[in-house]
């Protein structure tokens, strides 16, 4: 890890060019535009290249080894990664845990954990959901009981993305069963390579193993691995969600799907079909308006405003547009709708694969139903 120069001084266009240039020179070509989420064994060279350049954590303050970039420049950087087709990293340490530690961690915790995220020594995963606590996340029941200087953890987490790659997990655990459910939850850091932790990959509908179940059977964790105050875990975890949700609203997936829809229509000889053109035009309008809505939220962020609950709109809008476009792909794909592999060996054109990828986008990160509940209650102030 090296501390790079301060790139905030560059104007945005120069910054964009700088980033683009460096990515083009340094990104491993063999993992460009992957069709599935890569494992750490596959994306490690890229992880380490960013680490060496000091670009692994654009949002962290410079004193912690981050780039300290403004929100605008972080978005530019994300755009350039996406434009080049860079693989997503095992990034829970950088995007989730790091910011939380920086805000709520002790100096000792920061000194112990942050450098190892940046060096790639600790690969983190997130232990929030449980079999009985999905939409109702606060209903989680994995518990941690204090026994002397250790927390003893028992329970099960699920949908822990890339847990099979991780050697650490940050978890929400129940530390008090006697209070309101949100008020008895703590935030705990747990190593994965200790006795009592079992990880089982779950195949998804694409038959990839992105997510896992993790079982905790009397796992003993030092007392100092708890972040923040006991029973404050829920509040801490929630403060981080706003920033996540704006990223879930990025037009990336829908935009990519629309470009694939065009390719598919050409392949099917429908590019000039009037009905296709009309449906496509509506998707274009929907995407353009979504882009504009997204930009208006980004502009608020850039002005330093705190985003309210209405940021949930972005997630609904993006994920449902993504889904609708891929639904339509299946409609026009003919027999290709059935194929597992891309059409005719062109890995950029896989309607069934993209259709399946769109399914969880309205489920993870708070399902469309939960997002609508949030807006109804917290923005429209509807009763009940």
């Amino acid at each position, binding site marked *: 890890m090296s501390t790079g120069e301060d790139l905030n001084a560059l104007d945005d266009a120069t910054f964009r060019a700088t980033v683009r240039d460096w990515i083009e020179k340094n990104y491993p070509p063999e993992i460009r535009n992957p069709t599935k989420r890569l494992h750490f064994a596959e994306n490690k060279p890229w992880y380490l290249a960013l680490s060496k350049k000091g670009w692994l954590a654009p949002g962290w303050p410079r004193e912690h080894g981050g780039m300290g970039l403004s929100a605008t420049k972080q978005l*530019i950087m994300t*755009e350039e990664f996406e434009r080049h087709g860079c693989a997503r990293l095992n990034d829970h340490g950088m995007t989730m845990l790091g910011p939380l530690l920086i805000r709520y961690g002790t100096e000792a915790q920061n000194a112990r954990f942050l450098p190892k995220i940046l060096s790639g020594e600790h690969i983190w995963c997130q232990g929030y959901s449980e079999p009985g606590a999905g939409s109702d996340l606060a209903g989680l029941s994995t518990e941690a009981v204090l026994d002397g200087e250790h927390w003893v953890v028992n329970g099960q987490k699920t949908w822990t993305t890339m847990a099979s790659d991780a050697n650490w997990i940050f978890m929400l655990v129940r530390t008090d069963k006697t209070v309101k459910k949100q008020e008895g939850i703590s935030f705990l850091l747990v190593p994965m390579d200790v006795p009592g932790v079992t990880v089982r990959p779950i195949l998804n509908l694409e038959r990839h193993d992105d997510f896992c179940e993790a079982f905790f059977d009397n796992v003993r964790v030092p007392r100092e691995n708890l972040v923040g105050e006991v029973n404050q875990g829920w509040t801490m975890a929630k403060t981080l969600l706003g920033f996540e949700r704006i990223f879930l609203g990025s037009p990336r997936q829908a935009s990519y799907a629309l470009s694939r829809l065009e390719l598919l229509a050409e392949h099917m000889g429908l590019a000039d079909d009037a009905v296709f053109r009309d449906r496509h035009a509506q998707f274009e309008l929907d995407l353009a308006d979504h882009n504009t*809505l997204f*930009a208006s939220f980004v502009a608020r962020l850039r002005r330093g405003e705190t985003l309210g609950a209405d940021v949930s709109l972005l997630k609904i809008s993006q994920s449902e547009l993504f889904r609708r476009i891929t639904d339509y792909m299946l409609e026009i794909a003919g027999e290709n709708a059935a194929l597992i592999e891309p059409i005719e060996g062109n890995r950029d054109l896989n309607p069934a694969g993209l259709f399946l990828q769109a399914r969880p986008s309205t489920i993870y990160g708070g399902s469309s139903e939960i997002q609508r509940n949030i807006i109804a209650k917290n923005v429209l102030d509807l009763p*009940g």
Partner: protein
Amino acid sequence: MDIESDQTATDEERMETIRMLRDSAAGFLGSDLGRVRRLRFQDPGFDRSTWREMCGFGWLSVRIPEAQGGLGFGMQEYVALAAELGAALVPEPLILVGLSARCLPQEYLPAVLSGDRIILPAWQEEAGTLADAPRQTTFDGRKLIGEKRFVMHARGADAFLVTTMSGLALVEAMASGVSLTAEQTQDGGHYGTLRFDGAVANAIPDAPFDAAVADATLASAAYLLGLSERAFRMTIDYLKIRRQFGKPVGAFQALQHRAVDLYLELALTRASVENAATTIDSNVSGSQQRAAVSRAKARASRCASLVCREAIQLHGAIGYTDEADIGLFLRKAMTLINHLGSERAHRARYVALMKVA
């Protein structure tokens, strides 16, 4: 999509102007719809003394350059105002007379901007078309022959600005050779059909007609946005008050989720309309500007249809009565969704323009 650079950050001063314009309009217009209701189905469908007051505030002059006696504001200011007009369901023909005013030479302007003379544009020859080149109205520099349809507010006009195969012509409503018939519209106004049988008219050369139509179209989208936002707020308020089965109907989740869908559509519409205004105020190409306008009008028409239809359903039986104010919003939307171009027409035009942009 590239994030815009920091350099185009908000002009605080301009935001303040917009806020003041909006507040003063809202203050004058108020929330009572009694006036709007009373003017329905009464010729000409609007009130000439209120019209003069509005002209006095400069609402007609927003887009007229200062050199010509206008306010010289940008499109962002205009859409802010137009959204307030929509929220109040203002029946006065500000957007259409504003379109004419942008096309008229200096000597005609004082009487128009003061409110003394109402000059309405007449471009349409058949239903469902955009304001493209006319196909049948002729003008030989002196006499006008042809027919124009769907001239909104026609009975309130002193003169008409008519598109012809040889450019624009101005004709007095009372001129010999001009005849007018009218059909009532759902909002309580009317559409006029104008027949010109050799009526004497004056040529209006060098008018920025296309730009004026773009402004009016976007203002109309903004009007629909304001209309839809208020119809939505009224519906949400109703859902909180109306009780069935021992609780407010707004507590029923199925209705909540539908309300959120409308709220999303409104957010997309506001983003689209404001984006089009910024685009017109910038110096991008004409086709990019027109594309942004078509996008906004397509979205606003879609949104107004959706919101007003759902507003009626969510009001239940009361929403189907003429005496419930929510119906005024639906009926105005029915009148405006296809006026200055339907969602269909603008969707097609957006795609065509994006190919050249």
